[in-house]
């Protein structure tokens, strides 16, 4: 069959055109010229009157020093698509897969373009919750640096580094690739991808060309799978049930931030942590480099990465002892004591005891890059053993509902390299991974690529890998393509495109189908990948009708977690072969961060400017040190250091991280991109270059590193420079024990006012934020950014304090800096009743609405900034420059929400409680002729919060959730004594620990009686 080229027929409008007469060409030239100077009467020179008019006008205009507003035509739909009503949004159920975690999404579109992402409330995994990345990935759709056409690289024979880039058409690309495929020896290097259909297409494609698939993920889970295989027989990533765990012990397992499926885990975790109940789950964290999980721990203990296994064995030893068993003498030797771990004597015994008390409802978890050391497999085996010994297997850890498709394996990389060496691979297709960026140079991946005849990349960006490829065949954004995922067994979720491809891109699967077809060996009888997805899904759901229902609902099936516990293989003990860690002064731990993870979305400015939830640094990754180590080495925030790991050197900036283990340095992955987008270029350093190779494994954790100070200083952009509460009641905090005895940790003030209060006949909006369930994941910040058209200002201006986030997450430490407690506090406009901003604005640009909001009138604002000065919470943001889109690059303006004003230079802005959503919900209720219900209005931040920490509603409705929370025991008003009377209130944090909070430190003592507790300290 021949591939049909696109429109070849030439139509002509007249014979003149057909014959291309000179007269015709001349009219063609003039046809669309609207300039009066070229019109009929101007034939003999300039039309005099027109000339006078134009000159007069232009003189007037130039004298007035202004430019005439350009003519912008708006064109109505000639024929309106049935589903589109201009001005009204459409929502599509879809999904997104982010490395290891899958989301069910509800994508909001307006006039055919996706604008905002929310969680699919009914989807069992993430529910309404999203991660910061899931909210932000919409911006990558509009990324101006995304490839718009396929690219053909003329590869210089001397090496792939000197490729000449040229845009190509799909026809050209397909015809280049097809003959190459016929030679055989085709390989596909891809990431984990839990889509059965994609995998089917890939395997039939590879079948046709005697090819082979290699799977690799930067955030690998291989030791988990391997350990599961040894322990229980099947290599899988088990499902963890944090909602059923009363005591979770994490060994560098950042399950709230980056490990496997954080949003789902966060939901479950917080479900078990309701302080109003009789019991509240507890989290104990052992960590080398603090993560989001660490900062949410009730008790956290810094432990070097090289000691993880010794610690796990010590715990196991004590647990087994409690059960009347024991370890082999060899393993006993490897177990570390409290003292060796730098813990208080008896700590481990106490934790083991607690674990035993919670047998069957506890969970020990380890994993993530911080555990990918030489002992990664051993650690996982010990963890499995612990969970089995504690009876958690089958209860909090189940094989049922295991995460599918997470099969990335570094062994595949080594195999691929060997196969290239052996000349087995003539064509290499790289999809959805960026090995040139993500693999250490020491592997020689780039040099090996020269042995491949044709390298094809399906990247959407001309990134590190794509720039070395002969052909780049951009696969398009997930929002442009069809697919269907099965993230956990039994649960299928559809990925619906919500926009036609913005560029000339084609999905990976369609590319494979076309290439096979062009090469003469069809792999499917269907026309496109969509047809495959539709056919198979329709077959699964039964009928065409059910297919449409499925599309509406977004997912089908459910994950079944019932089943009997697996029994631990008796050989586990013999399989644990501890590798003695090399003695080193300083060990390197490479960690992913919540927002950047593997760096695949590094060109999304929102994510670059999202403060890392732990360090609060933007636009940079840093080498983190414990305060003690930093002091010993003379490192301060911003000190530029030269590091050397096994001969690989780079310059990186130092940062002092409270709570980090001594003699450990941490470095975040995902930065230091060198290609693939203007924004991400040279932001931070590429940590993956420091990954070590050991046999068939990549080692992320525990490599010896030497650090040398330089005299340079690199100012870090830190959005929160001060980390303690200075003894003020900002985050009220109590312990679970004290709370049960009636101490809520809140000091209430007696407030009286000589003024009357506002009266509200209709609605009276209010918001409650639960500091106990907030984990600081920062998803709300991204949702707000997307909803409210919040600009990004860049590193330079963040350093100057000009970031624009309407909602920010404040993070405070208390206690000993070596082992601090952390709290998070989302902070946005508190919509004060006695708003200090309102009284001081000279032009009444910020006013109280009759529903209690502080309305900000952008039109009226002249920008005195008095309101910001007078705001005790400092939540107002000022447009220091034009951020409003004059200088937005192409396409990026399409990500703007048309329902929210884009602010111009010189005006103040702030959180509005998503007033556009309030209006929208009111209109809907009115259309449906019913009163507003509680929950009709969801602010953007509330909508995506995985733990429902944020609740918005009507305070005049006594039955609303927020009304009830306003009279809750833990409710308090921030800065109550200022009597701004905010209508956002907080619920106090409850920490499930036996320690006394803030003893000897500057935290707010629960009683708040003595004035001496206000000890001023500085960090």
């Amino acid at each position, binding site marked *: 069959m021949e591939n049909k080229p696109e429109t070849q027929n030439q139509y002509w409008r007249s014979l003149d055109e057909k014959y291309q007469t000179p007269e015709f060409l001349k009219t063609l030239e003039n046809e669309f010229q609207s300039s009066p100077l070229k019109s009929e009467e101007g034939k003999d020179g300039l039309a005099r009157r027109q000339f006078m008019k134009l000159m007069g006008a232009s003189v007037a205009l130039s004298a007035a020093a202004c430019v005439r507003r350009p003519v912008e035509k708006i064109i109505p739909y000639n024929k309106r698509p049935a589903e589109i009503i201009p001005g009204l949004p459409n929502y599509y159920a879809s999904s997104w897969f982010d490395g290891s975690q899958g989301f069910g999404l509800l994508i909001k579109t307006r006039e055919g373009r996706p604008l905002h992402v929310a969680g699919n409330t009914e989807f069992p995994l993430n529910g309404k919750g999203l991660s910061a990345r899931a909210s932000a990935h919409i911006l990558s759709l509009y990324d101006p640096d995304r490839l718009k056409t396929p690219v053909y690289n003329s590869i210089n024979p001397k090496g792939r580094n000197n490729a000449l880039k040229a845009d190509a058409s799909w026809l050209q690309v397909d015809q280049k690739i097809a003959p190459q495929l016929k030679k055989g020896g085709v390989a596909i290097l891809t990431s984990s991808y839990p889509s059965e259909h994609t995998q089917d297409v890939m395997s039939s494609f590879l079948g046709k060309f005697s090819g082979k698939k290699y799977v690799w993920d930067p955030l690998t889970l291989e030791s988990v799978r391997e350990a599961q295989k040894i322990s229980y027989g099947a290599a899988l990533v088990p499902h963890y049930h944090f909602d059923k765990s009363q005591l979770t012990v994490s060994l560098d397992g950042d399950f709230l931030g980056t490990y496997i499926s954080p949003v789902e885990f966060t939901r479950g975790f917080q479900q078990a942590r309701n302080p109003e109940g009789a019991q509240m789950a507890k989290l104990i964290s052992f960590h080398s480099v603090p993560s989001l999980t660490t900062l949410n721990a009730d008790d956290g203990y810094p432990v070097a990465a090289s000691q993880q296994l010794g610690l796990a064995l010590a715990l196991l030893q004590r647990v087994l002892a409690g059960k009347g068993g024991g370890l082999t003498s060899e393993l006993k030797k490897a177990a570390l004591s409290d003292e060796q771990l730098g813990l208080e004597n008896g700590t481990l015994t106490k934790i083991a005891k607690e674990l035993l008390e919670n047998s069957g409802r506890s969970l020990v978890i380890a994993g993530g890059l911080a555990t990918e050391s030489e002992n990664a497999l051993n650690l996982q085996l010990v963890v499995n053993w612990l969970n089995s010994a504690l009876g958690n297997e089958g209860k909090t850890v189940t094989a049922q509902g295991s995460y599918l498709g997470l099969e990335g394996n570094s062994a595949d990389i080594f195999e691929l390299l060997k196969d290239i060496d052996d000349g087995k691979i003539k064509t290499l297709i790289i999809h959805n991974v960026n090995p040139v960026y993500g693999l250490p140079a020491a592997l020689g991946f780039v040099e090996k690529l020269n042995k491949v005849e044709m390298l094809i990349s399906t990247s959407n960006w001309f990134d590190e890998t794509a720039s070395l490829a002969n052909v780049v065949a951009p696969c398009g954004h997930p929002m442009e393509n069809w697919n269907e995922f099965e993230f956990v067994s039994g649960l299928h979720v559809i990925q619906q495109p919500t926009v036609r491809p913005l560029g000339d891109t084609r999905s990976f699967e369609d590319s494979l189908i076309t290439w096979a077809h062009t090469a003469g060996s069809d792999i499917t009888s269907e026309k496109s990948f969509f047809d495959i997805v539709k056919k198979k899904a329709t077959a699964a759901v039964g009928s065409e009708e059910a297919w449409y229902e499925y599309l509406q609902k977004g997912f089908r099936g459910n994950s079944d977690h019932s089943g009997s516990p697996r029994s631990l293989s008796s050989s586990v003990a013999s399989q644990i072969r501890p590798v003695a860690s090399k003695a080193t002064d300083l060990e390197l731990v490479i960690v992913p961060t919540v927002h950047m993870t593997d760096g695949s979305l590094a060109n999304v400015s929102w994510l670059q400017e999202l403060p890392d939830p732990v360090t609060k640094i933007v636009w940079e990754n840093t080498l983190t040190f414990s305060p003690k180590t930093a002091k010993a080495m003379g490192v301060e925030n911003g000190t530029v250091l030269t590091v050397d790991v096994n001969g690989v050197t780079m310059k990186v900036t130092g940062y002092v991280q409270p709570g980090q283990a001594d003699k450990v340095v941490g470095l975040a992955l995902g930065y230091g991109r060198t290609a693939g987008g203007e924004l991400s270029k040279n932001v931070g350093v590429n940590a993956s270059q420091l990954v070590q190779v050991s046999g068939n494994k990549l080692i992320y954790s525990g490599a010896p590193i030497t650090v040398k100070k330089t005299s340079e200083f690199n100012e870090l952009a830190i959005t929160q420079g001060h980390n303690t509460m200075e003894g003020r009641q900002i985050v009220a905090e109590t312990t679970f024990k004290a709370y049960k005895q009636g101490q809520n940790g809140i000091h209430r003030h007696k407030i009286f006012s000589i003024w009357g209060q506002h009266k509200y006949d209709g609605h009276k909006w209010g918001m409650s934020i639960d500091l106990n369930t907030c984990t600081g994941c920062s998803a709300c910040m991204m949702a707000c950014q997307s909803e409210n058209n919040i600009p990004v200002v860049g590193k330079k201006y963040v350093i100057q304090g000009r970031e624009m986030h309407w909602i920010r997450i404040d993070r405070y430490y208390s206690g000993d800096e070596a082992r601090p407690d952390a709290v998070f506090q989302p902070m946005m406009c508190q919509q004060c009743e006695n708003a200090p901003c309102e009284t001081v604005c000279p032009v009444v640009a910020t006013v109280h609405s009759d529903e209690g909001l502080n309305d900000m009138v952008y039109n009226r604002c002249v920008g005195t900034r008095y309101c910001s000065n007078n705001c005790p919470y*400092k939540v107002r943001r000022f447009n220091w420059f034009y951020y409003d889109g004059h200088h937005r690059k192409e396409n990026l303006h399409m990500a703007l929400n048309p329902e929210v004003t884009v602010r111009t*230079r010189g005006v103040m802005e702030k959180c509005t409680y998503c007033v556009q959503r309030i209006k929208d919900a009111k209109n809907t209720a009115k259309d449906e002729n019913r009163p507003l219900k509680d929950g009709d209005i969801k602010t953007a931040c509330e909508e995506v919060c995985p733990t429902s920490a944020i609740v918005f509603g009507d305070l005049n409705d006594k039955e609303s959730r927020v009304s009830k929370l306003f009279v809750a025991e833990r409710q308090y008003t921030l800065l109550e004594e200022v009597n701004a009377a905010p209508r956002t209130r907080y619920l106090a944090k409850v920490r499930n620990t036996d320690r006394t909070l803030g003893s000897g430190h500057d935290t707010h003592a629960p009683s708040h009686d003595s004035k001496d507790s206000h000890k001023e300290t500085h960090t």
Partner: protein
Amino acid sequence: MIERKPLILGDKTYKEITDDICEPVETKPGAGWIALFFSAKMLLLFYLVSIGIIVTTGMGLLGVNHPVGWGTMIVTFVFWIGIGHAGTLISAILFLFRQKWRTSVARSAEAMTVFAVMTAGIFPLIHTGRPWLDFWLIPYPNQRGPLWVNFRSPLLWDVFAVSTYATVSMVFWYVGLVPDFATIRDRAKTKLRRNIYGALSLGWRGTGRNWSHYEMVYLLLAGLSTPLVLSVHTIVSFDFAVSTLPGWHTTIFPPYFVAGAIFSGFGMVVTLLTLVRIGFPKFKDYITIDHMEAMNKIIMATGMMVGYAYASEFFIAWYSGVTYEKFAFVNRAFGPYWWAYWIMVTCNVLIPQIFWFKWARRSIPIMFVVSIFVNIGMWFERFVITVTSLHRDYLPSNWGMYAWSRWDAAILFGSFGMFLTIFLLYLRVFPAISIAEVKPVLYVGKKSKHGGKHHG
């Protein structure tokens, strides 16, 4: 009875007085003046260009940020407004108290007031995010509803206070100038000169009726200006005092600001008049060391008042028991901006103490140096109040530092270009000492030519 000291030295006749004072207006400027004028003018042009760039590019060029929403512009605004206090104080309050020594310095002090207020007035206009909409701060009938201004906002009170003060002090100054303009007109040798000064003198004939009306108007305006001296800076201080910010929210601000304003105003008068004495040596007979000494006494007195205010703020912050207040003041003295605080204390409280010594009060070099320190100290006082209060307030998560940029420096120093350019022009085109007021005090403290005491 204590012997009065002569207010005018050198045994002058009325004619000599007129000649001396009119000399700068009637002669060609010397090289020194030209050099100064061109330097000042260059600085002014630089200032205008800087303002232009800031207005067209955005406030982000300056160091203002989150949390420090007000910076150099407001600091310098309050600084210049403060300077503008001495003039009216000298001409109005001292006039009402019949302090005859004021006559020789009143004219220049008033001129300084007017120019300082003009310089200050630029800042509130350009410090807004959208300066082209500044007219929205004026309550005028409009077609937006009508939409009025917010009468609760101290910034609006500021608009009224500063514009009233500027108007009244300008009228007061001008009225005082009228008889002198007539003198210059009468001495004019060219037609152009005669016409210009003739127009400026508003048809002054020097008749009894003229003088009678003049004296009455002058008295009334003095009475009108007197409360303004107190009210302007009181209201400027409300910008801070009415807010919720720890470090701003204090009741001591009105008197403290007024005292500080008079302090800085006299500091600037001394700076300028020492220079005028050098530039126009003949003026030494009119602006005598006794005059300078009197002003130095006021500097010392008001400096101590300001010092008292500093101390009392600390006491009240401690006494109030409010965490935030206590922190704000500890942070001023010992926080990251400790240096600004101690520059302020040194310049404003410690250095003027040298005026306890008579030789220091009467030494031109010493008083010049001290007055410069006073100017620096008072700029830093406003910096301390504005920036160090804002940079660390209620929530430690907000804390940050002012992001000082070169544009801040351009604005600060450029404003001196504006002030000095106008002041130097004034010295050449207006009589810098009031001829009409000096003549009546010619015989104060002198043996009369007729042998008896003359009570002028």
